[in-house]
């Protein structure tokens, strides 16, 4: 927990110059094979996506494509900010095999577990 608290501060500083990020809403599932993470980033396509892996930390950044609408805004609920969220990874994840897919503003990350930690059925011989 102590190491965790120490990690928090450099990230804050790093965030300082760009405060206009919003955290995407995510679903995370764990299966026997690994993890699946889905993140909602409307307006972001493949080119606007940056996924960085640093140690056991994965950072997802989604930059919205430029879609300025001319004219006078009558109602504005959408946030123009880019998306960013950081996750601490389970050490069991095989970081070399992480794959990402982007479809209609939803990022799906597949994070397989290393073969050695996968549960294995052992047959007992007589």
């Amino acid at each position, binding site marked *: 927990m102590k190491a965790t608290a120490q990690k928090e501060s450099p990230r804050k500083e790093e965030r300082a110059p760009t405060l206009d990020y919003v*955290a995407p809403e995510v679903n995370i*599932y764990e299966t026997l094979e690994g993890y699946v993470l*889905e993140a909602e*980033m409307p307006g972001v396509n493949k080119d606007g996506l940056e996924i960085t892996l640093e140690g056991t930390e994965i950072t997802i950044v989604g930059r919205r494509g430029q879609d300025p*609408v001319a004219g006078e*805004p009558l*109602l504005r609920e959408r946030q123009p900010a880019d998306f960013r969220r*950081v996750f601490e990874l389970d050490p069991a994840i095989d970081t070399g095999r992480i794959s990402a897919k982007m479809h209609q*503003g939803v990022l799906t990350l597949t994070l397989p577990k290393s073969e050695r930690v996968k549960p294995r059925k052992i047959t007992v011989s007589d």
Partner: protein
Amino acid sequence: MTPWSSFGRLSDLREEIDRLFDAPLNELARTSNLLSGWTPALDVYEQKDNFVIKVELPGMSKEDITVSLHEGSLSISGERKSGTKHTEAEVYRAERFFGRFQRTVTLPAPVAPDKVKAQYKDGILTVTLPKTEEAKPKQIDVSVS
């Protein structure tokens, strides 16, 4: 240590708090999906000849989106279905909303119903509604003598 927890959650909480402070009231209502269901964020722009509406609908199929116009009101409705089956999975986070939504916008000027166009790209639905000829701003040239 449980994965996906500890400081990730802490910073989420911090961001959530930041979000609450920044958010206007309608934003707040939108954040609490549990109470209100899903209210996708929506922008309305007025141009000289059109109204343009943008709605954030990430992760849908375009077949599941219905756009209809009735007496000057535009309705956008649909259902977001959970694409992946995770019946045998353990859920760590479930922030995304699945289910039905509906949003209705009353347009401030008449539009030509047969010329309305909708496009769904990168999880954003864009509806362009051309104004009727009568509703377009007109320029009247006055000769100065």
